[in-house]
């Protein structure tokens, strides 16, 4: 991969990132809110709608159907956009997409562009690129605005500044909004929001071009759909001379009815709202009798490896509608936050998608950063088998000899015994007996050879009552007794 955007990836240093994240007091304070708020709100929203699980099946089926016919839906969508006077540009790589956007901006003589929140724009490193070309990008989603002031990446796909405390945000505002009175009160979140609203209102009215992402593209009508709570995306796309939609090809849905199904699961899974505040369908540029709206409407359809993902075992990942529920429910994400993952997409969806986009050689740690508790799959609105795909990445990493030598030799050692069940039984029984004997006085070990990774942080309990296999065999013997005498659970 030679794309400049991927150069910024710190995914290869995940372990170091995680270590410093665990030691970061501000981050740990900010992360406390994630677990409490997002999980409860999603659960309540799901419980309020009896059809929620049926809608998840429906959402999964719609995305599967669309992906299986993606070539035809892309063509149908494109025809509709063109019929309504819009332009469709295909971009094979991030670099292509950046160049297309730059050309549109140059043609219009654009000096500033406002931006709605777009993960695809982060993926292709659009802001840095535009700035280097003399065009000022201004993020308008409050969270994105805050992290742009700090030159950071989003740490969450729907709450980009979730890693920050309000005190940190206050000091950023004081630093950047230096034209405002130094004595002003910014203690309350409300005053921070009011200040950002006033500063950004000027930018909205002055921008030459507005760039948004798209949550969905509707083939039936040629519409792009954005969903926000703030209304920033709408001001971004309504006020300037041109609206550029940057969307990846898997955002297609066939019809307005299909869109309705997906809307019902998206906000509930993301923020626990029944609906986000603003869901906007945009179709083409300003019409002859329209008093407002952009004069030009461009859609940049980004592939960036997705068309190849359709072929393999990671196709299901393309169903993702970017709600963030997987990371909201992930114990690893709760512990280390989003930046530790080192690139644009964090959490379980990032652990699967990032290796596809920047390579397993760079992102190999991510699918390993999982407890396989399975909560991500349990809450996914489009039922993506995230743990299964993380396992697939681990297998590929192993096959390509990318995993560290200690892991490989450890696995080889285990594999030797696992392939010889008799030897395995004898060896583990012997080890269990030895450990039980050695630990009989204290019942635990504070240090063990080859297990310091475990014992550095907690004691290792001394085994009791034989190996699991031995207990299993005993138990099974009891269950195998004639009907009527069985006393164990019905297995």
């Amino acid at each position, binding site marked *: 991969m030679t794309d400049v955007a991927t150069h910024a990836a710190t995914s290869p240093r995940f372990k170091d990132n995680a270590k410093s994240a665990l030691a970061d007091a501000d981050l740990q304070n900010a992360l406390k809110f994630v677990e409490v*708020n997002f999980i409860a709100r999603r659960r309540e929203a799901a419980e309020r709608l*009896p059809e929620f699980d049926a*809608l998840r099946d429906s959402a999964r089926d719609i995305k599967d159907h669309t992906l299986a016919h993606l070539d035809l839906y892309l063509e149908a969508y494109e025809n509709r956009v063109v019929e309504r006077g819009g332009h469709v540009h295909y971009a*094979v790589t991030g670099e*292509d997409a950046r160049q297309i956007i730059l050309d549109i901006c140059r043609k219009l003589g654009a000096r500033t562009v406002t931006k709605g929140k777009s993960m695809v724009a982060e993926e292709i490193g659009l802001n840095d690129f535009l700035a280097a070309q003399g065009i000022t990008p201004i993020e308008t989603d409050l969270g994105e605005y805050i992290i742009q002031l700090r030159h950071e990446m989003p740490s969450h796909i729907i709450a980009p500044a979730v890693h920050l405390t309000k005190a940190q945000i206050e000091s950023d505002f004081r630093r950047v909004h230096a034209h405002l009175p130094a004595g002003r009160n910014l203690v309350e979140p409300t005053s921070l929001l009011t200040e950002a*609203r006033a500063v950004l209102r000027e930018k909205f009215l002055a921008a030459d071009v507005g760039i948004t992402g798209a949550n969905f593209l509707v083939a039936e009508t040629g519409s792009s759909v954005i969903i926000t709570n703030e209304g920033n995306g709408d001001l971004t796309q309504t006020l300037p001379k041109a609206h550029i939609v940057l969307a990846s090809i898997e955002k297609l849905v066939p019809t307005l*009815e299909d869109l309705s199904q997906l809307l019902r699961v998206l906000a509930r899974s993301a923020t626990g709202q*029944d609906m986000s505040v603003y869901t906007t369908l945009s*179709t083409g540029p300003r019409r002859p009798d329209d*008093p407002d709206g952009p004069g030009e409407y461009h859609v940049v359809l980004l592939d960036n490896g997705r068309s190849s993902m359709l072929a393999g075992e990671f196709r299901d990942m393309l169903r993702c509608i970017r709600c963030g529920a997987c990371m909201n429910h992930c114990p690893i994400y709760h512990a280390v936050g989003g930046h530790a993952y080192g690139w644009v997409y964090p959490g379980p969806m990032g652990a699967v998608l990032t290796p596809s986009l920047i390579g397993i050689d760079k992102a190999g740690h991510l699918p390993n950063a999982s407890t396989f508790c399975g909560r991500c799959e349990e809450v996914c609105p489009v039922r993506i088998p995230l743990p299964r795909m993380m396992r697939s990445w681990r297998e590929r990493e192993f096959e390509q000899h990318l995993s560290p030598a200690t892991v490989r030799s450890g696995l080889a050692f285990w594999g030797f015994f696992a392939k010889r069940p008799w030897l395995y039984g004898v060896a583990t029984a012997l080890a269990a007996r030895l450990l039980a004997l050695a630990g009989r006085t204290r019942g635990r070990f504070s240090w063990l050879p080859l297990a310091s990774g475990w014992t550095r942080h907690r004691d290792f309990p001394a085994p009791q009552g034989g190996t699991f296999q031995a207990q299993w065999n005993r138990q099974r013997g009891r269950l195998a007794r004639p009907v009527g005498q069985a006393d164990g659970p019905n297995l």
Partner: protein
Amino acid sequence: MTPRELVLATVRRSLGVTGAEATRRSEVAARLAGHPPGVVPERGQLEPAGRLDLFARMVKAAAGTVERVADMAEIPAAVAAFLRGHNLPLAIRHGGDPLLSSAPWKLAGTLEIRQGASDGADLAAVSHAFAAVAETGTLVLTSGADNPTTLNFLPDVHIVVVDACDVVSDFESAMARLRSRFGAGVMPRAVNMITGPSRSADIEQTLILGAHGPRKLHVIVVGKP
């Protein structure tokens, strides 16, 4: 190969198709033309009066406010009362919407009325919704000279008038109305589905109303279903 051809070719290679298969083409054409509904929640499937109550409840749950009036003649007074109740100047802006223009605005006395798209200076705007969805308390507004899109986002206060007959059960019903009004596959430039006033929870997940769009959303339902 153009980028377009390259992307489509890679998609087809990955799917193991040529794009010319008649069954795939007819399946896609049938879905686009037939737009089959999926799972439609029971929640909104109520008789008209119950549907209006649900709509009002859901608007309030989304931090909006609702009132009902008997006919358009009551609109000016209701708008003026809302503005006075929130200590706002007695001034509004609306587009060329025939229903809104038909209201007897002179009855509201000193209420100042401007017409057309917003330049960002207006504190309050009045729009007429194309439809409303009871299921979630969502307003559906369409762009154009009658109800300019800027009125939905720039003013601090957005007052939306909706005819009781236009409050439908679910999204599918709203989509069907769009189709019958504008034609199959045809949409106005913008369809804004609005559920409550603007908000953000980006600072420590504290929910605050009035991010970039209106701080207040007031819905006036006119007449009986």
